[in-house]
């Protein structure tokens, strides 16, 4: 495949090299890929489309995965093995080439704020690590908190990485770690005064977070998922509904190009 650069949005079709691909938790893997062009352009909240097969046509489509970490010219992908694409990914050996398309989409906006609060649930924690690192670097004097939720303790992954960035508070559905209950309750209790919220995770969690943010008048950015074919605005497949638009051609936005990060008020969660 040709390696070329998008003048418009600066994304690349890059054949990276798998540096590591390891299991890091129940059904969860972390893949590190050497990909100098994509890493140089990446912003927190953006994603890549990963080709999980070579030569074969099933699975057919690339898989969207958030950029979890950037380490010089290497990027980290944190992914849960849920179906045939991710199963194949988990079996890929080191040193093998892998085709990535990215960085794609609009990531998080990092504006000045007294308190940056990152709220993640499940695999939604993936994009928050890189986000936290970038806020720390761009706004070294502003407070950062990380709130992570999971069903159970064993699903809370790579905590040290997050703790290296900012103080982390935990919530689990079964109480096996941190607060017993939802990460939303943690947010309601822990964060007072002005704050900016960044959230990624299961839809009900993000709905709860966005509702609280609206109530408390916090700016809130949500990172969405949708089934994607192209990842670059060509297929119009990855729709979410805009808030407050009539039944016309403005009714929908596209997660891959207009997102994946949106202002919570912009879309119907």
């Amino acid at each position, binding site marked *: *495949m040709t390696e070329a650069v998008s003048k418009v949005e600066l994304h690349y*079709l890059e054949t990276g090299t798998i540096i590591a691909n390891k299991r890091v938790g129940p059904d969860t893997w972390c893949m590190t890929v050497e990909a100098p062009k994509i890493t140089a352009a990446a912003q927190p909240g953006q994603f890549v489309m990963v080709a999980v097969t070579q030569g074969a046509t099933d699975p057919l489509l690339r898989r969207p995965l958030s950029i979890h970490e950037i380490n010089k010219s290497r990027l980290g992908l944190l992914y849960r093995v849920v179906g045939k694409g991710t199963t194949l990914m988990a079996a890929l050996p080191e040193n093998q080439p892998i085709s990535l398309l990215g960085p794609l989409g609009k990531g998080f906006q990092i504006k000045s704020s007294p308190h940056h609060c990152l709220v993640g649930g499940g695999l939604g924690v993936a994009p928050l690590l890189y986000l936290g690192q970038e806020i720390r670097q761009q706004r070294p004097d502003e407070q950062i908190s990380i709130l992570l939720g999971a069903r159970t303790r064993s699903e809370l992954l790579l905590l040290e990485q997050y703790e290296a960035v900012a103080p982390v508070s935990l919530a689990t559905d079964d109480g096996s770690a941190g607060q017993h209950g939802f990460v939303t309750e943690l947010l309601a209790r822990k964060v007072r005064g002005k704050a900016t919220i960044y959230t990624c995770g299961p839809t009900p969690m993000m709905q709860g977070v966005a509702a609280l943010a609206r109530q408390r008048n916090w700016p809130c950015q949500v990172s969405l998922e949708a089934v994607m*074919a192209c990842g670059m605005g*060509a297929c*119009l497949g990855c*729709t979410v509904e805009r808030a407050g638009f009539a039944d016309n*051609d*403005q009714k929908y936005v596209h997660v891959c190009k207009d997102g994946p990060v949106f202002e919570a008020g912009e879309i119907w969660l």
Partner: protein
Amino acid sequence: MAVDTKVSIGAWQLANPIMTASGTFGYGEEFQPYVDLTSLGAIVVKGISLHPRPGNAPPRVVETASGMLNAIGLQNVGVERFITEKMAMLRGLGVPVVVNILGDSLEDYRELAARLAVIDDIAAIEVNISCPNVKKGGVAFGTDAAMAARVTEAVCAVTRKPVIIKLSPNVTDVTEIARAVEAAGATAVSLINTLIGMAIDIKTGRPKLANIMGGLSGPAIKPVALRMVYQVARAVKIPVIGIGGISCLADVVEFMMAGATAVQIGTANFINPALSGALVSEFADYLEKSGRQSATELIGSVRV
């Protein structure tokens, strides 16, 4: 040796047979980082209707074995805004642009074609007749030879641009429809549009697409597409444009051997956005290496 990659669709000459398929290549600009658009035979833009359409509710796409189902619902900005907002950009791309149109009634098609007839730098009109005919109770224009012929006549009557009728594969006899639109004045036919399919999420007990059914595309449908191109190329004298699952040079050659004058790359653009551009040079190389002087030698050359 300079091989001749040119092919002709009526009076319109394409630099080479590689086109991109409607709905799979945006308005071209998305692919500019990966493809030298000026090298392509042509691009076909997403289907345009008379009025803007929001498209279907999500989910709109789902992967299947070596294919995908889509029910985008023909989301588009409408012909008015297409002309005012998109045409200037498209002109700047330096590639022949084919505009794909769709309507709910004969009048829709006629009006669309008439509006576009006067716009410079539109190389051809491709007519998507796989849409349900609202006035005839929702039966697709493309599944009835007489209706398909009437759409063709309506469009041809109001434009001097080449008119490509895009055929639906969801029919008993695709050659019957092809002959009807040929007789009605079509410059060329393109095929296939998507096969109608469905998928169910067994966890929720609901269809995976909000629209229940969708259009199947990708490598899975290639054998059906190739068969129909072969049949139609033997049934009509006008050029045939082959579409369906084309993902590599060998696929391009197969469709041309079966009788296609040109081909369109669809779903494969999503997997490899650089593909269409790469095929242009691979095609020229192939002609040279296989000792052919011209692309036209390939067309319909399959020996049966």
